[in-house]
């Protein structure tokens, strides 16, 4: 058993850290304040292969591991959670299902453009009436001749208004329940497809979270992804992978808040000494650091299993549950350590606290993660 | 190599467009001291085109002898002809010590000359001395490891013992018009073919409003705590009121807020103004290396533990964004 990073991973960490510090961090406050999608950052990430880290080189990807991908999401989120989720949704929720279930033609058509960042990817499962109960899909897909015709809408779609390619889950046969759900690849230029309203969010405000609308949206028959009726399974599997990405995002937010708090408590003086010298600070920070390290080990172990082709569903759930709750705890306490300043936008911890909350909600709420973990325990 | 054949202290008298550079005079001041310690002569090497009239200034500042190499090929500094001229001099006259200003010219010329003569070269010395023991060793002390450490370097068995010295580090002698010296025209056979390998297309002067910060008597210097161009505008207002210039730490240059020509420190300029007012500069060792010789150092910083306070004559723990404008206003009213 070896817990250390390989030389490749160390070099990767050196690169991604420098990239995050120099290219991403300076924009973080502005992107949040203006609710602006950082397209320029996406272009820079695309250039060095960050939009297709675990995609094999034969499909134009970087040929890296999921461990590296997780490190990237962590380091990006450490300085800007918006940037972290853009990469996570693109990679885990769009590239991954195409890799998992796509035909060779589909892989060759979509992956090179996605992995090179020329196209941005998104994933549509959630509907107004199908959140945690994802099986209640109301979007329908009906085969008419050589075309699938989609009708309905998806909500809370990350990258929505900037994505070129969408993995859409829809009901193809309501009578079969979850076995009547299938997956499709929709392009933004497809007739009958449109992007609806953009959400005004508490956190990750730079990520474009939108509604997707399908009004007699016609796509060629060969855009069906995976087998007919296997869409629900694909969606669940996709979310298993996505959860590790979000776990890494949460971990990054937590680490970022730790960094800020360590710096601040060393600088800030009250009663004649740095507040880092008070035992209350030291003990609380020691507890938080322990949790952050534990979260990192859970994230890396889940990605390791994914890389090794081992089952990782419960590991992903545990990584996400623990990392998300750790992020929430660390950021809340970080604001407290910063006192009144922490509540202002002069310091980044209030943004981190707002950003952290979503990690307990999307790609399966903490309650869903507990269901998954318990499901494995009591099966 | 018979070391006893080598004697005297030679100084490269850098000139640009027929104007002697201050560092040349500073080096003469130090060379005078070194030569006197060994009862030797100070020889200035003056290279250029129509530069002979400058020889008198060199004598007034400490040279006993000026070797003038006047040639079309030496009009603008170019590596090869300058190296050839200096090497011709070292070959014929066998200097014991050679000092060169650590300018972009001197730091191009020095290593080339040292390699051609297979001798040692100490970069950017801050202290040069002849040991007062029997050995009469030439000791060259310079910062190393990013200014964190000082190292004293010897060049025992090779001559000339070469060193570059940064502008502003040594003190020039007051000009003495009564000093007498010898001016010698020195002819060099240039290797024209070798020289023609590099062609100067043009030299462009960048007319910045900058007075050279290493010449300024008063510097108002800003660091990370100043933050932005707007922040520096406050410093400029104060500098104007004090009749000084604005300088900067490396952080603000790297951040693109300030121009590199205004950077103080290990990788920037060495300054020793009468007043160095450090605003929002934490005082990394590299920065201190460039300004700690200032006559009076006043520091304003939010962090009580900022290392800048360890070199400051007066330290103020506080917000420069409040204090600087108030100080500017106060000085303005005092003027009236």
């Amino acid at each position, binding site marked *: 058993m070896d817990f250390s990073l390989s*030389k*490749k991973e160390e*070099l*990767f960490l050196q*690169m991604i850290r420098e990239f995050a510090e120099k290219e991403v961090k300076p924009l973080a406050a502005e992107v949040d304040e203006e609710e602006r999608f950082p397209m320029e950052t996406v272009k820079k990430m695309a250039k060095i*292969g960050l939009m297709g*880290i675990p995609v094999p080189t034969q499909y134009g990807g*970087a*040929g*890296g591991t999921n461990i590296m991908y997780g490190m990237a999401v962590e380091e990006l989120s450490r300085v800007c959670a918006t940037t972290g989720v853009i990469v996570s949704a693109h990679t885990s929720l769009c590239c991954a299902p195409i890799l998992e279930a796509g035909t060779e033609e589909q892989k060759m058509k979509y992956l090179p453009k996605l992995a090179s960042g020329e196209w941005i990817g998104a994933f549509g499962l959630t509907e107004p009436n199908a959140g945690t109960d994802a099986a209640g899909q109301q979007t329908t897909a009906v085969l008419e001749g050589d075309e699938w015709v989609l009708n309905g809408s998806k909500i809370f779609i990350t990258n929505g208004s900037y994505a070129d390619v969408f993995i859409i889950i829809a009901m193809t046969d309501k009578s079969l329940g979850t076995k009547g759900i299938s997956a499709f690849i929709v392009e933004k230029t497809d007739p009958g497809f449109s992007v609806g309203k953009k959400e005004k969010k508490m956190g990750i405000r730079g990520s474009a979270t939108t509604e997707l609308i399908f009004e007699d949206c016609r796509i060629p028959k060969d855009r069906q992804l995976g087998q007919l009726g296997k869409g629900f399974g694909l969606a669940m599997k996709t979310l298993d992978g996505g959860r590790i990405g979000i776990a890494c995002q949460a971990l990054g937010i937590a680490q970022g808040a730790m960094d800020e708090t360590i710096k601040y408590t060393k600088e800030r003086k009250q009663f004649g000494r740095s507040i880092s010298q008070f035992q209350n600070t030291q003990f609380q920070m020691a507890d938080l650091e322990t949790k952050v390290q534990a979260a990192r080990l859970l994230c890396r172990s889940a990605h390791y299993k994914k890389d090794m082709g081992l089952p990782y569903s419960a590991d992903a759930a545990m990584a996400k549950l623990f990392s998300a709750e750790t992020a929430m705890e660390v950021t809340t306490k970080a604001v407290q350590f910063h006192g009144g300043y922490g509540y202002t936008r002069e310091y980044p911890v209030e943004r981190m606290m707002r950003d952290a909350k979503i990690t307990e909600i999307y790609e399966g709420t903490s309650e869903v993660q507990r269901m998954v973990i318990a499901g494995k325990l009591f099966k | 190599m018979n070391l006893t054949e080598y004697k005297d202290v030679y100084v490269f008298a850098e000139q640009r467009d027929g104007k002697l550079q201050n560092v040349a005079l500073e080096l003469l001041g130090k060379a005078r001291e070194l030569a006197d310690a060994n009862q030797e002569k100070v020889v200035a090497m003056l290279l250029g085109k129509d530069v002979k009239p400058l020889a008198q200034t060199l004598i007034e500042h400490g040279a006993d002898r000026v070797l003038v190499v006047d040639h079309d090929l030496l009009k*603008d500094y170019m*590596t090869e002809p300058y190296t050839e001229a200096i090497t011709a001099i070292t070959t014929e006259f066998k200097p014991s010590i050679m000092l060169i200003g650590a300018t*972009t010219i001197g*730091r191009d010329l*020095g*290593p*080339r000359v*040292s*390699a051609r003569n297979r*001798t*040692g*070269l100490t*970069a*950017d010395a801050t202290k040069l001395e002849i040991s007062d023991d029997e050995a009469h*060793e030439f*000791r060259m002390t310079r*910062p*190393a*490891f*990013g200014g*964190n*450490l*000082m*190292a*004293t*370097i*010897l*060049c025992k*068995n090779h001559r000339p013992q070469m060193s570059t010295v940064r502008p502003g580090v040594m003190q020039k002698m007051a000009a003495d018009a009564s000093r007498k010296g010898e001016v010698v025209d020195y002819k060099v056979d240039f290797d024209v073919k070798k020289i023609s*390998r590099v*062609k*100067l*297309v*043009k*030299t462009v002067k*960048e007319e910045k409003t900058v007075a050279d910060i290493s010449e300024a008597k*008063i510097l108002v210097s800003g660091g990370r705590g100043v933050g932005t161009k707007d922040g520096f505008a406050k410093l400029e207002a104060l500098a104007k009121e004090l009749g000084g210039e604005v300088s900067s730490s490396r952080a603000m240059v790297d951040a693109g807020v300030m121009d590199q020509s205004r950077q103080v420190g*290990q*990788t920037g300029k060495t300054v020793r103004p009468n*007043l160095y007012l450090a605003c929002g500069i934490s005082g990394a060792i590299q920065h201190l*290396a460039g300004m*700690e010789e200032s006559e009076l150092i006043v520091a*304003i910083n939010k962090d009580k533990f900022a290392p800048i306070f360890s070199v*400051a004559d*007066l*330290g*103020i*723990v506080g917000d420069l964004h409040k204090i600087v404008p108030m*100080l500017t206003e106060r*000085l303005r009213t005092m003027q009236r």
Partner: protein
Amino acid sequence: MNIVVCIKQVPDTTEVKINPVTGTLIREGVPSIMNPDDKGGLEFALQLKDKYGAHVTVITMGLPQAEAILREALAMGVDRAILLTDRRLGGADTLATSSAIAGALRTMDFDLIVTGRQAIDGDTAQVGPQIAEHLDLPQVSYMADLKYDEATKTFTVKKQLEDGYQILEMQAPCVVTALASAVQPRYMTVNGIVTAWDKEVEVWNADRINVPEDHIGKAGSPTSVFKSFPKQLKPAGQTFEVSPEEAVELIVNKLKEKHII
């Protein structure tokens, strides 16, 4: 076109701290990095690779762990990496260092040799010009920009000066020394990192370079360190934590006392 870029692994001197009690350097935990000016030079070389398909080799002289910066260079896109390492090369000053590197370069094909202007651990700016001298090549130091004309094999170099710049022309083969501030080095690519260990790092020893023993290592170094010591800072003055109004008074009084105003 063949380009060789000389790079050095250096301690990140901005991370160095002084032990406040003993006044000595704390070297522990100081990361080793590719020297910034060298990385700038490498970027210039890689831009020529992008434009003209130049073949880029990096060479470093140092301890075996200097391999790390060669892998980094491979991940940035260089074609070949050489590690010159040998105990006989140790203890070298700039002249002996440049002699050894020049010896290695003599065995290679090149049109252009790129070095950084200076390394942050020594700040001497000597090794580049000295390499040029040993190889009897023309040089331009303080390079802020580089252009190439394929037809005439001419390099046009912008040389930064204190008060402006020069434009100079040189024909291959020649040497330039680059400024880090002139260029933004590219990031390693993810695929570059993944494949950086698939390529060989050639390890050369002193026998490979054919330079006389008395020109390398300690024996080939005209200079020696007589002693080294931590920098003495002048004693601190007084520091006050007061209101802005009082601060202004203190400063004004000090300036008056020293006859600044």
